[in-house]
């Protein structure tokens, strides 16, 4: 354990906690920060798979999507109470992850990438065909999730801290998982599967459990995302979004969940910043990402750790 594993994220969390009081309190800034935190959560959960278990999933956006659509389904039935919405969103995603993971994890390498992509696309087309929930056009929520009937999350500041709380929890959870016996088996099997089998441990159930946990955290991020935008569309499940998440993880570095945290924040904020500079921002963003992959071997986390 090095200092940056804990100190770096602690600094980032402190900055996020103080940001609303240091000139980032307007609604536009808070919206952006909420988005960044939500994606950071999803990226951290994906990091458990990619960096921990060596499972490179190109379907992680589907996890966020299932969580977001759980909010939609309940919203349609006028159920907005958090104590119903959260378990439903997280539970539905965990089930989805269990069903798809049970099949996907039997494969490895490129096949795993392809099969997670295929499941993601399946979820995407399912969402597009849900006419009741707006199909391709998406669905606008009647209102944000309530806590004990109180519309707490309507308050942007309250929502900011709700997102921050979930983000810190996700980071702490993934960090603890990776250091536990469970995480040790995952990490070992990523490096040398045969050795792990020869020790008497079958990697499959550990990987599946990781897939379900990562899915559940991704689902929670999806619930928050639906609340942040008060709108859900199939684009949330698009494979490009899965690619973005994967990118955030690799950009940040695979040494620990703090990498994914930094990668996601940098990705969302730089993307936003470039978009304010020019409408051709994608022409800059793409090559920038390529340069990062080429020259930042340990990711952003590795860069900061060296300094």
């Amino acid at each position, binding site marked *: 354990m090095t200092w940056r594993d804990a100190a770096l994220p602690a600094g980032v969390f402190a900055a996020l906690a103080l940001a609303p009081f240091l000139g980032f309190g307007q609604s536009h800034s808070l919206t952006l920060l909420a988005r960044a935190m939500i994606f950071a959560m999803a990226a951290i959960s994906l990091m458990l798979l990619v960096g921990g278990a060596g499972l490179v999933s190109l379907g992680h956006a589907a996890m966020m999507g299932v969580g977001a659509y759980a909010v939609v389904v309940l919203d349609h039935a006028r159920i907005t109470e958090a104590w119903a919405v959260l378990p439903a969103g997280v539970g539905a995603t965990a089930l989805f992850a269990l069903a798809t993971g049970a099949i996907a994890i039997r494969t490895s390498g490129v096949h795993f990438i392809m099969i997670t992509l295929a499941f993601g696309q399946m979820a995407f087309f399912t969402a597009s065909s849900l006419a009741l929930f707006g199909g391709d056009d998406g669905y606008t929520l009647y209102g944000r999730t309530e806590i004990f009937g109180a519309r707490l999350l309507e308050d942007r500041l309250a929502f900011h801290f709700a997102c921050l709380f979930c983000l810190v929890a996700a980071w702490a959870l993934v960090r603890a998982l990776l250091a536990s016996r469970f995480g040790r088996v995952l990490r070992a099997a990523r490096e040398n599967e045969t*050795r792990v*089998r*020869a*020790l*008497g441990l079958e990697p499959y*159930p550990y990987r599946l459990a990781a897939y379900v946990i990562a899915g559940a955290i991704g689902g929670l991020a999806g619930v928050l995302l639906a609340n942040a935008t008060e709108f859900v569309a199939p684009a949330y499940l698009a494979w490009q979004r899965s690619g973005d998440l994967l990118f955030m993880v690799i950009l940040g570095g695979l040494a620990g969940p703090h990498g994914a945290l930094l990668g996601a924040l940098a990705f969302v904020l730089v993307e936003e910043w470039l978009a304010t500079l020019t409408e051709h921002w994608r022409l800059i963003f793409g090559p920038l990402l390529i340069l990062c992959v080429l020259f930042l071997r340990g990711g952003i986390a590795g860069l900061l750790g060296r300094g």
Partner: protein
Amino acid sequence: MAEPLLELRGLNKSFGGLRVTENVSLTLEAGEIHALIGPNGAGKTTLIQQISGALAPDSGEIRFLGEDVTRLSMARRARRGLARSFQITSVIPSFSALENAALAVQARSGSSFRFFRPAAREAALNEAAMAALEEVGLAPRAHLPAAALSHGERRQLELAIALAMRPRALLLDEPLAGTGPEEAERLIRILRGLGARYGILLVEHDMRAVFALAQRVSVLAQGRVIATGSPAGIRADPVVRAAYLGEEEGEG
């Protein structure tokens, strides 16, 4: 006497048209070092793989602790006490030597579905792992990543991992491969110490080690066991000399 620790009955295995295991039957008793020798390509590693469960034999039976394990997975056999070292070192490169051994301890003690407690701080795992490293003389290097160890040290680690599993039988595939004379000397000493406690099936090209360690020797040539006996008997066997030892001694 009861059933042997490990027993192979009429194993057969072909790769396409190539018969690499042909009607192999042999036994390993508890507390015995049984050496398996034979020229390159004789099928020694393939046989170890079938015993450990990495490969399935085409026919025949593998019995371990009195039970048929022929159809059990590698992980299941390992949990029953069948440990294996690899001819080509197979460790977790980024893990420290200690963590490599601790993983082996973890695999046999309690569930690995434990999610919150940091494994690196479990004293019981670390102590047993350290004991295994001490046994092979690797304790001073415990905190180095496996990737940073010398070749010989990684062979020692390979052995420590097997010991940390607290196995009943050890399948060692050329534990001395690629080690220098001093390291080989030390490993031979370690193996001699282990012999009384486990059954060891030892595949080895180093004849000095084989004759220094084994109580019994079996000779494999082109997939078949052509002789089994005491080291002295094997050394004198004309069939063996023709098939194998003759060449070796000619070289030496």
